[in-house]
């Protein structure tokens, strides 16, 4: 039997190793993307009634792709004890969370007279399973919430429809809100807490030591879900919200979405004529922790912002 030359063995080894590495890389990239988009939703363990609040379950469809979304409408409580939906805030939670994410803060806002429509974004809580879009696909959920408030079956018919709609988004929920507000004038004022300026800024900290899979995951995501993360750039659309006011909040010690993201968003938002932009850098606060770090101040600033910017007829209050 002829002896296999050494060069053949070396080359065969090289081909086998490169093949194994390539197949492992492709498999891992695809697996990461499929897992991220199919994570089991976090269960909802509290309801507004845990905070003594009156609320109703609501369902509505996302705009454009018509996914079934579930949420709560929590009417605001006026000083005289009456309920109101005159100023309604659409609250958009962050990634891998659900509508109960900041229910304690929601309760504080409700007690200050602001109604809250809080819902599970696609793929979260009890809403329909769907690929996650880092805020890009989720803008359709926010727009579906606007459609619901404007023309859907209101669970409190006696309270009428909201006269002014605001938005409060946290992390990628903030990015979904920026995208939605940029195209929907019915959203009159928004608060965005810990949002990224471009998704590319978010990817490296999100992948951490597995950064090598970022390009593989990018192409896998493009193939499987038709989304290229480099195209997700809320910073490119935020200026379209003007003259409607924007309030940007950011933790100064955020390591997931670093404070420069807020700086970029604010600078672009302010570049529009008649822009109304406020920023608040919360000291010593990590990602989406500002509301718990300075809870009372946080609630006060949100209430002041929405009461000032959401204009309604005085007899409704």
């Amino acid at each position, binding site marked *: 039997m002829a002896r296999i030359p050494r*060069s053949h063995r070396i080359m065969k080894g090289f081909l086998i190793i490169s093949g194994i590495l390539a*197949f492992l890389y492709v498999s891992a990239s695809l697996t990461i993307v499929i897992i991220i988009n199919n994570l089991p939703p976090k269960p909802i363990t509290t309801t507004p009634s845990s905070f003594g609040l009156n609320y109703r379950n609501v369902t509505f469809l996302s705009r454009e792709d018509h996914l079934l979304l579930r949420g709560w409408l929590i009417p605001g409580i006026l000083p005289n004890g009456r309920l109101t939906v005159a100023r309604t805030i659409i609250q958009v939670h962050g990634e891998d969370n659900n509508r109960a994410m900041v229910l304690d803060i929601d309760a504080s806002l409700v007690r200050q007279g602001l109604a809250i429509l809080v819902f599970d974004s696609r793929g979260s809580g009890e809403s329909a399973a769907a690929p996650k879009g880092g805020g890009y696909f989720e803008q359709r959920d926010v727009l579906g919430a606007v459609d619901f408030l404007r023309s859907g079956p209101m669970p409190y018919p006696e309270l009428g429809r909201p006269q002014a709609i605001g938005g409060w988004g946290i992390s990628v929920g903030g990015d979904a809100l920026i995208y939605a507000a940029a195209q929907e004038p019915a959203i009159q004022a928004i608060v965005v807490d810990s949002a990224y300026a471009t998704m590319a800024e978010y990817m490296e900290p999100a992948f951490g030591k597995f950064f090598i899979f970022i*390009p*593989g995951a990018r192409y896998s995501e493009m193939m499987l879900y038709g989304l290229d993360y480099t195209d997700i750039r809320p910073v490119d659309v935020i200026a379209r919200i003007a003259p409607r006011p924007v309030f940007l909040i950011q933790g100064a010690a955020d390591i997931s979405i670093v404070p420069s993201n807020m700086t970029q968003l604010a600078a672009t938002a302010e570049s529009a004529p008649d822009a109304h932009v406020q920023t608040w850098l919360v000291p010593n606060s990590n990602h989406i922790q500002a509301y718990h770090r300075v809870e009372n101040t946080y609630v006060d600033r949100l209430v002041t912002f929405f009461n000032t910017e959401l204009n309604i007829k005085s007899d409704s209050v």
Partner: protein
Amino acid sequence: MKRLQSEPENNTSNSTGSFTRAENEDRISIWYILLLTLAPLYLLVLVGAIVFVLILLDRHFISLTNFVLQQYIFIAIMIMGMAVAIIVYTLSINHAFRKIGMWRQNSHAKQANLGLLVLAIVASIMILPIILALFIH
């Protein structure tokens, strides 16, 4: 005289003919070598293209409201695609090495070396995206 004349003529025409044939053989064998040794690469591209088309069809025909079903089909396509890709890659490499071994045994060292060189390029192309991912992300 005629014969002498004709002989060299015939010899010349024979030697030109065999030279051309050898040249053609060389030319054919280069294409054959490329076809054989690039097979792991272009067959993988073909498998990838088929997987991509199947995924697009899945996305097109199964709406987002049936997301779970869509995901199961994605996973099935991926697993099958990966299995086919591994089989195709392994078989094409083995086939290429068998041929290269035969060429070497038949004293076609030039073809064998060229085949190995192309396989080295194939291996480098396979690993290149991972190396690039280390630096560009």
